């Protein structure tokens, strides 16, 4: 990231290499609805985009600022609720507000609320910050049931987005129109959040995360640096909230609960909090995973919990960290050395994972299906969940796949070593 672009800079100092990823992202976002045109897929993509913004906003705190928050959903929630109120105001009074500007209001609400909370919570990082965020999260979640006028109580608040001013004739009735609106905000937010990391404040956020005391002796107040990270994070969480409100046209208590805050922590960590792209990967993978799992199994949450715990234990740098591990090999141009061993791993690995899942599914079926119901379907096969034969196959297959996977590990290690060694080098 510290490449010396300045010495080779073009007019305006922007090189093609820096613009490239953004161009590609724009084109992909433009083309996606043509590839996946089903309404249900577009819904998933909308959700993904909102989650990406929220996760990146969250990582401004966790990854860049070193502040672990257990109540960040509150900022998204408040932004969303405020946006809904603005929407109904437009609906009732016919205020001339084009819909695409709505998320700004969510962002401002998030920013203001973050200024209030941040004024006392950013005094310290670490445990104190985490606990205050938990307390504030619970307080707001509880308040959302008490203050019905603003939060709407149990039923939440809702509005209709189609009453806004049409923009060039678009009234946002169709799902794909909403998609482009969200995609536009996604690009803008991601770009702004990325640029923020390149500013003095963004750099100092990292410095304060690593060593707040040293930062103080370099002329910076650690508290102010944290405060800036905090309010910008609140702003973008609010933007995500505004988009959520715009997409679903409803905000409820659930959107600001502890569960929601926990989920965003999970997503960010899964993707890798040490990298800017981490939360993006996390949000995409997590949304896909939950969508797929909820379609095929009742045990989705169990699997996700397992994945999460395994990630923390074995791969604390997340998926992005896993990818970045391959960077040295890529630089040496030896990535292809890893291809064959990886491919060998695919089949036994997949069987081991799916097999374990099958064992869980069968166990669950035996315990919780209606009494007398022995027939269960899994991976398109229908069989008797009580028959010993099925159990032998499931457990035997899984174990065999695990053994094979384990046997392949040394090969991977060797290939890994080869791929990361300089040709003819001493090591």
């Amino acid at each position, binding site marked *: 990231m*510290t490449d*010396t*672009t*300045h010495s080779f800079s073009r007019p305006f*100092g922007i090189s093609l290499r820096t613009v490239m990823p953004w161009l590609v992202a724009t084109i992909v976002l433009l083309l996606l609805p043509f590839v996946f045109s089903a309404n249900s897929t577009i819904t998933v993509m909308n959700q993904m985009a909102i989650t990406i913004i929220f996760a990146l906003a969250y990582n401004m705190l966790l990854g860049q600022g070193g502040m672990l928050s257990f109540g960040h959903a509150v900022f998204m929630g408040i932004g969303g609720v405020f946006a809904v109120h603005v929407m109904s105001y437009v609906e009732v009074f016919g205020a001339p507000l084009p819909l695409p500007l709505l998320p700004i209001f969510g962002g401002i609400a998030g920013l203001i609320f973050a200024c209030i909370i941040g004024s006392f919570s950013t005094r310290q990082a670490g445990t104190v910050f985490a606990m205050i965020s938990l307390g504030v999260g619970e307080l707001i979640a509880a308040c959302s049931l008490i203050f019905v006028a603003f939060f709407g109580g149990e039923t939440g608040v809702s509005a209709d987005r189609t009453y806004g001013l049409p923009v060039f004739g678009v009234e946002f009735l169709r799902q794909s129109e909403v998609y482009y609106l969200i995609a536009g905000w996604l690009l803008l937010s991601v770009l702004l959040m990325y*640029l*923020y990391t*390149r*500013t*003095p*404040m*963004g*750099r*100092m956020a*990292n*410095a304060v995360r*690593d*060593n707040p*005391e*040293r*930062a*103080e*002796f*370099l*002329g*910076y*107040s650690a508290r*102010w*640096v944290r405060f*800036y990270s905090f309010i*910008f994070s609140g702003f973008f969480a609010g933007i995500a909230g505004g988009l959520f409100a715009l997409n679903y046209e409803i905000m409820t208590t659930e959107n600001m609960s502890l569960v929601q805050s926990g989920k965003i922590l999970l997503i960010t960590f899964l993707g890798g909090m040490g990298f800017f792209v981490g939360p993006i990967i996390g949000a995409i993978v997590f949304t896909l995973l939950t969508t797929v799992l909820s379609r095929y199994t009742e045990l989705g949450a169990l699997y996700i919990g397992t994945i999460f715990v395994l990630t923390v234990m074995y791969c604390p740098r997340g998926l992005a960290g896993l990818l970045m591990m391959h960077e040295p090999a890529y630089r040496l141009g030896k990535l292809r050395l890893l291809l064959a061993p990886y491919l060998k791993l695919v089949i036994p690995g997949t069987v081991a994972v799916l097999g374990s899942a099958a064992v869980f599914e069968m166990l669950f079926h035996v315990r919780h299906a209606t009494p007398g119901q022995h027939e269960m379907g899994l991976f398109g096969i229908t069989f008797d969940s009580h028959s010993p034969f099925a159990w032998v196959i499931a457990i035997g297959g899984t174990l065999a796949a695990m053994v094979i996977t384990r046997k392949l590990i040394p090969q991977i290690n060797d290939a890994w070593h080869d791929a990361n060694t300089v040709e003819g080098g001493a090591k």
Partner: protein
Amino acid sequence: MNHALELSDLKKSYGKAEIIRGVDLKIDKGERHAIIGPNGAGKSTLFNLITRRMAPTEGKVHLHGQDLHGLVPFKVNRMGLSRSFQISNIFPRLSVFENVRCALFYSMGFKYSFWTMVDRSKPLTEAADAIIEQINLTSRRDLPAGVLSYAEQRALEIGLTIAGGADVIMLDEPTAGMSNTETDYIVDLIRKVTVGKTLVMVEHDMGVVFGLADRISVLVYGQIVATGTPEEVRANPKVQEAYLGTAITAEH
């Protein structure tokens, strides 16, 4: 009014234990001043009091004639006082370049800016590279600071301390735990980077102290028993009795 630093009747106590028992000291502008003393004399505590890492129980510190009472460290730093730490205190996950650049932001006027792109500022990059050059870490520029060797981290520590252009530099045991060659390297570095600045340092290595310092203060049990040029201090019987004794005579 020509003093860079002026301590008057500075005291620090924890409960009944008095660590610093009334220190008076004036350090001139441009002077290289060393504070020496046996272990547990309170040298690091004195440093912490001057830089406002801790608040003194009593007494005052004046920096360029301004009272530092009630200020927090970052304010003191902005007034032109910068310090290093006994244990390397750097940003381990940032690259060497990023470390130095962070030390430059405030003094180069970026302050709390969240609208300028740091990579686009040529003066900033050049200044950071100049300092890295000065501390001899150019070949390590893009490595995370956490993986540097001990001596390199100490050099970086000094780089961070001088980067902001402060005119009072305080170094806490800059050569602690170093081999002879490393010590020579650091001493040269210190001499090089503190030209025209006021230097206050705590140091155990008498060779370093007598080679670098214009004046020396001897701190024993929270009080200064002697201040003067190296020759005066070496000749002072009180000092010899209290602390140095044979050490100096053996060295020279």
